[in-house]
């Protein structure tokens, strides 16, 4: 059995798995395009306008402008994570789609890589739908905010890889609830999303920076939408790249262990 960090052999055939998911997504595009649109509206009005009325400004930035990039970052996380946990698990376990695919020239590495690419694409699509809403609300700056789109894909790869690690080891679809509630929800709240990390105790700041992938996506999103480049820019990019590569490689090897017996 190859070690868990060994580089998987992925071919261009991964694109066929990505394409299959894209076709299915566009078959039901109405239900798929609506949620990001509504989500942006809900967050902006409830938290931005509602809570924002009391908060006023953070570090001289109007509260609604402060949370706008967080809305994008959370959407990057949720789109990829839920696609590659529940979505991939259903395709793997209930629909037996992976079994059908690996009976063709596709390898399991191609299939999982295609699923991860698709998860990242979901993140990109969500952000691309939300951006115009935020522009209309005049809470983000152009053209710098367009960086959110490639960042969404990169962040999507990271969360898709992370999600696929859980999918590879989960005994059932119910146990996927654990990472959702114990990792995704805390991240959504404590990654510098709705309030700055600096008001947390120092130890929590370090925890958020060290182990919460979302912290780095929120920080980069904020740098793009305000726009306001910070000194930590290279650190955030390096962290994301390292995590993305690790998660993707490990998840593919774990999936291989699960499915190729």
């Amino acid at each position: 059995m190859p070690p868990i960090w060994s580089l998987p052999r992925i071919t261009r055939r991964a694109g066929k798995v990505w394409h299959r998911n894209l076709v299915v997504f566009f078959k039901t595009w109405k239900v798929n395009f609506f949620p990001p649109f509504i989500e942006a509206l809900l967050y902006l009005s409830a938290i931005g306008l509602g809570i924002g009325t009391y908060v006023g400004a953070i570090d001289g930035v109007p509260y609604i402008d402060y949370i706008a990039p967080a809305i994008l970052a959370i959407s990057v996380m949720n789109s990829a994570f839920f696609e590659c946990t529940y979505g991939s698990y259903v395709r793997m376990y209930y629909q037996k789609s992976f079994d059908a695919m690996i009976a063709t020239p596709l390898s399991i590495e191609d299939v999982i890589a295609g699923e991860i690419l698709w998860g990242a694409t979901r993140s990109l699509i969500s952000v691309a739908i939300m951006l115009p809403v935020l522009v209309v609300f005049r809470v983000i700056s152009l053209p710098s905010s367009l960086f959110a789109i490639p960042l969404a894909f990169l962040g999507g790869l990271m969360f898709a890889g992370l999600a696929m690690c859980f999918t590879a080891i989960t005994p059932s679809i119910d146990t996927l609830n654990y990472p959702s509630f114990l990792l995704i929800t805390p991240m959504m709240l404590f990654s510098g999303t709705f309030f700055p990390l600096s008001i947390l105790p120092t130890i929590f700041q370090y925890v958020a920076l060290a182990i919460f992938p979302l912290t780095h996506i929120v920080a980069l999103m904020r740098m793009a939408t305000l726009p306001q480049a910070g000194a930590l820019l290279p650190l955030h990019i390096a962290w994301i790249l390292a995590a993305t590569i690790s998660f993707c490689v490990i998840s593919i090897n774990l999936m291989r262990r699960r499915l190729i017996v």
Partner: protein
Amino acid sequence: MQGIIEADDLTKTYNEMVAVSHIRFSVKKGEIFGFLGPNGAGKTTTMRMIECVSPRTSGALLVFGMDPEKNPAEIKQRIGVVPQETNLDPDFTCAGNLLTYARYFDIPPAEAEKREGDLLAFVALTEKRDVSIDKLSGGMKRRLILARALINNPDLLILDEPTIGLDPQARHLIWERLRLLRAQGNTIVLTTHYLDEAARLCDRLVIMDHGTFLVEGTPADLVRDQVGSEIIEMDNTPEVIACLVDLGVAYEILGEEVQVATDASRELAKTLLDRCKKSRLSTRPATLEDVFLKLTGRTLRE
């Protein structure tokens, strides 16, 4: 001449459990080769190794002269698989399933559409072209899976219990299609629990149990060599048993019945009628089922 599949000393273990143990076989071009055996005999494991989705533990395996561990994509490009479990894509229609599958084999769209039409006609599903998978009956799903397995014009077709749970009409349609495919020069490997199916379809077959082959041969040879040409059935009474013991005839007790396998049923039946009176006596041709039960026993498997 080298066969389409060559296996030598092929072994597969899962952790400590031996699923397939040192089997050796060769499948020739253009034949239908069957794997028979009770549940857990190792049939599906053998299929999965040929399909390049399960690595072997030891031994040699060549498909089209290539090693499944070294050239899986090249081998899989040329095989069609009908799995035991229905794994059609529920997000697509019948036509959508075939076209999506065609993309996995790099079949150009125009060619894929032509094959999709031809194959739906081949399995009599043209009218269901735009129907979603969950609206199909079990038999229709199996037929669509057969069509899907043929989308790449495979040189080797592997079927794992192709007619499981089907009504007689659907089974006959699949049998007829498989014979047609053989007539076109396709090589077919199948597993089945249905012994009549194996007897009708297979040119050669093996009977497996506990991961090893018990016998190999043509259905007719196996019946003749293992059982004899006919079975005489009599009532299971003490008189009949005593009489059979007296005559030195080998017999087997099956509940209310005593069975005697023989090549010379007429003479034996006459003797038995003369000597063992007060018993019903009937003769029937021996079948593959008699061979199967003789070799694998009558104990129920999981």
